[in-house]
């Protein structure tokens, strides 16, 4: 409390009472009313029964763990393999997409930072940004056009005689994984680029002069520098992929749900907001736990994210 007061006083001395009040009120409103309270309210909501409006606040409106119990045990006290399976599948798929993104983005970030020069480098940066101005929904739609039954990929494959009947890429989730990989490429490239750019080119040249192979140069010189960037990019890509809703809705197969779609269904189709909130809390906790574990493994702090 004292530290906050001191900061407020320092602000007043530097920029006047007006600015200090503005900063204090804004940060307070932002943290309390926009970030913390809504999460608390959601948690509280997830601990309640789904009651008709007339009974809310009445004697029946008590706390319960029913919604969480449903996630683990379903209605009949057996293990709820379906919902837990969907969560697990979502996490594994998100991890898979993240790894693919690292593999795709690392070389291009390195090339951008150290190999490309002049006009080509400028064009490459612009070329990276332009596709991400297009709406997320339209990007997913583009992949649907590509992978549809009469889409481009099937057309080419069948014309070349690689396969005879159209392959259902949507049902096989190929379209979904490609779309998700595509969707967050930019968020992976820029952190890696920022990290790799700090590397002194002379180090690479020195390693080459000493006779190190390219693999060795990357493994021993470039990768250690790129690690914080990779961790920060991976965190963002993983969280966004696990929490993605648009791409799974548009590109997902009819029988293959993403965990966010399950939450969406509790809200919009079953009108059971309480259970939806409980599922949202589960998603939030699992994602945070997963990311913190990864950060522990790769020894990076949250302060490095968003740089």
């Amino acid at each position, binding site marked *: 409390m004292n530290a906050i007061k001191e900061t407020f006083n320092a602000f007043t001395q530097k920029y006047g009472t007006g600015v200090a009040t503005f900063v204090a009120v804004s940060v307070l409103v932002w943290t309390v009313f926009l970030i913390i309270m809504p999460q608390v309210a959601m948690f509280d909501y997830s601990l309640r029964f789904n009651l008709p409006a007339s009974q809310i606040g009445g004697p029946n409106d008590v706390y319960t763990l029913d919604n969480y119990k449903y996630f683990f045990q379903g209605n009949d006290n057996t293990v709820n393999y379906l919902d837990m399976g969907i969560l697990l599948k979502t996490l594994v798929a998100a991890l898979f997409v993240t790894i693919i993104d690292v593999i795709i983005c690392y070389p291009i970030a390195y090339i951008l930072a150290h190999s*490309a020069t002049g006009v080509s480098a400028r064009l490459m940066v*612009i070329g990276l940004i332009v596709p991400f101005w297009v709406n997320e929904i339209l990007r997913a739609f583009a992949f649907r*056009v590509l992978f549809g039954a009469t889409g481009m990929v099937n057309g080419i494959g069948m014309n070349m005689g690689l396969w005879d009947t159209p392959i259902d890429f949507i049902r096989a989730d190929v379209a979904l994984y490609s779309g998700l990989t595509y969707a967050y490429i930019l968020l992976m490239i820029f952190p890696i680029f920022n990290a790799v750019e700090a590397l002194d080119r002379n180090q690479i040249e020195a390693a080459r002069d000493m006779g190190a192979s390219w693999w060795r140069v990357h493994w021993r010189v470039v990768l250690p520098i790129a690690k914080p960037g990779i961790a920060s990019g991976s965190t963002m890509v993983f969280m966004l992929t696990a929490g993605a809703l648009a791409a799974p809705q548009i590109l997902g197969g009819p029988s293959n749900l993403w965990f966010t779609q399950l939450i969406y269904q509790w809200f919009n189709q079953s009108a059971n*907001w309480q259970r939806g909130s409980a599922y949202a809390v589960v998603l*939030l906790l699992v994602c945070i736990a997963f990311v913190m574990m990864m950060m522990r493994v790769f020894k990076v702090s949250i302060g490095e994210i968003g740089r």
Partner: protein
Amino acid sequence: MNKGTGGGFFAAAYSLLFYTFLFGPLIIMVITAFNSSSFPRITPWECFTTDWFSVLINNDRLMEGLGNSVIIGIGVMFIGVPLGLAGALALSELGPKLRATLYTVLIVPILIPGVVLGISTIVFWGAMGRGVGAGYDSLFFNGMFLTMAGQVTFISAYAMLVFIARLQRFDPTLTEAALDLGATPGQAFRKIMLPFLSPAIGSAAFLTLLASFENYNTTVFTILSGNTFTTALASKVRLGTDPSLSALAVIIIGITLVGAMVHEAHTRRAEVIRTGTASRSRIYGNPVLKVLVHPAAVLMILLAAIGYTVYQGAQYDSSVCTQGILDEKLERQRILREEQRKKIEAQRKAQEAEGGAAETFSKPKSPSAFGGAFGNSGALAPAGD
């Protein structure tokens, strides 16, 4: 390409492959906007058409959503930029320990799934509304307000990151000097800090506007029964696809490219002016070229070109060609039916020849690939239509 640091054949090939992946889907989508086939595809190519643009503009739901999105975007911009600025300023003054805590709290909304943010927003404001006894037509249950509240939560953090990056280069002695020279603290802020931050304010405003416009995951919950541009688009894509969405992509990509070119012209010009090499440059030294590469001139030229293209496109009439395609399809269908009819006839005759027992058998199994689709209509339709 710089050879010493790995700019060889492999790097070039990889870059090419990467950019193909990046642009390929978009290019294909753009091409499908001009194919008259009612499913977005390139093969088979039917007719060149510009009709999908008018289909797009006549979509009322999308246009209503566009209006809502603009209002929400402007609202989010006016709330999010000041919040982001306040957050960045607070972080710049706090001690290291509190700073880390506050940074974590403020940055977390970027990381947590948008779905969670949307749900927590509607649940929280709904509880508040019930707490103060407000009706369902009040602010607490208004989709536009809730969407702004939900989006501001994390979009302000984007703005904050922009301000933090700018503040890192701020020289605090400037403020101290101003205070020493007798400026009031308020003046020091207005005349030193704000002008220093003004480029960041511009880019933060732009970023918040774009992020608000693009957002789907949070908005789809907070907008309740309403629609923004993105949610209307998503429900259209989910219900069924037609190339008017590709037409929309053409428009968005067009705007983006114009923006990128004008921005590039602006940066290059600023660069040349800053380094003072304008008179020696081949382009900027030439009086005619100098006017032509001015950002405003670039914008005018591009707009004129687009205006001409749009006018030509609006004049283009593809109805003859689409009618031709339709006739061709009908003709093919007619031939198929004819074949089907003959086949049935032949089969019936064969059965008659075999004996009267099979006469009641009226639905022969068709060996053709279209058997399922045309078998029934072939039998039911009047022959030779």
